[in-house]
C-alpha cells in the first residue's frame, strides 16, 4: 500500500486524532474512507448530471454513453433506469400527434 505525507495545521491534526479515537479507527482508515465517500458521491452526482442532461435533451444518447464510458445501449438504459430515471419520450400529446400523422399516411398509402 503506498504511503503519502499530509501536512495539517495543529488544530486539524488534533481534531482528526480525537475523531479517529472516538470512532475507534485510525487516521489512515479515516482518511481512506473519507476519500472513498467523496469520490463516490462525486461520481454519483456526475452520473445524475449526465442523465439529467440526456433526459432533458441537452445531450444525445451517444454523448451520454461516451461521458459515462458505457459502450452498449442496453447497459446505458439499464444504468439510467436503475438510477431512477424514466426513458425519455415525447409527451402523450406529441406522441399521439406524431402517431396519428403516421397512421393516416399508412392508410392513405394502402388505399392507393
Amino acid at each position, binding site marked *: 500500500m503506498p504511503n503519502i505525507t499530509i501536512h495539517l495545521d495543529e488544530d486539524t491534526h488534533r481534531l482528526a486524532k480525537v475523531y479517529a479515537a472516538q470512532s475507534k479507527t485510525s487516521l489512515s482508515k479515516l482518511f481512506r474512507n473519507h476519500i472513498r465517500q467523496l469520490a463516490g458521491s462525486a461520481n454519483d452526482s456526475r452520473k445524475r448530471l449526465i442523465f439529467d442532461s440526456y433526459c432533458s435533451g441537452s445531450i444525445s444518447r451517444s454523448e451520454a454513453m*461516451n461521458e459515462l464510458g458505457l459502450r*452498449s*445501449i442496453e447497459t446505458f438504459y439499464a444504468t439510467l433506469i436503475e438510477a431512477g430515471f424514466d*426513458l425519455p*419520450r*415525447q409527451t402523450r400529446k*406529441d406522441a399521439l400527434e*406524431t402517431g396519428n400523422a403516421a397512421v393516416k399516411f399508412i392508410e392513405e398509402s394502402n388505399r392507393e
Partner: protein
Amino acid sequence: MSKSCKLVIMDAAPLIKLAVVRRLDLLFSFGLTVFIPDEVLFEAIEKQSWMDGIGPTPDKVYMKEWVEVHKETKQVICRETFIGSSAKESRESGRLTAKNYPDNLGELSADSVFLERANLGFGNAPAVLMLDDYEATDMFKSKRADVYFFTTYSFLLQLEKSRLVDSAEAIWSDILLELPTASKMQDPDLTGPLRAGTIVEFRP
C-alpha cells in the same frame, strides 16, 4: 418487391425495447413490412455481446429467431448497406474494435438506406420511419416533422387507440421493468462472447 408501406427501423432502440417484452410482432400491425438496415440489426442483436464480451441475453436470442422466421415470410427485410458492409468487414479484420467503434454507425447505415433505396427496391414505395424516442422528441421540438415517423411510445399509443393492445402505458412500464434485468441475463445455453457476424447472416 411489394409497394406496401415499409416501416424502416432507423435506430436499434425500438427493437431493443420491444424485444425485452417479447412484443416484436407488434411491428407488423397496420400491415407494415419491417425493413431493418444491416448495421441497425447488428446494434440491436450483436453489438452488446461484441462490445461487452458477454454471451447473448435471452431477448437477443428471441430477436434473432424473430428476424430469421419473418425473413422467410418476407415480413422482415434485412439488406446490406454500404456503411453496414464496410463496418462488418472492418470488425472481421480487426480494424474496428469495441474501443474505436463509432457511435453513429447504425444511424449512418439507416440514412444510407434512403440514398440507396432505388437499388434496394423500394424507391417509390411509401415508408414510415421508426426512431428512438429521444431522437423523435428532439425532431418534434425542432419542427422537423416533414417525414412520417413513429417512436416506440407513439407506436404503442396508436396500437392502444386501434385496440390492438390494452394499454400502451402498461407495455412501457414492462419495458422499464425488463430492460435492467434483460441486459444482465445471459442465455445459459449460449455462453462465451459472440463473434461479429455469427448470429445473423445478411443476404443482399
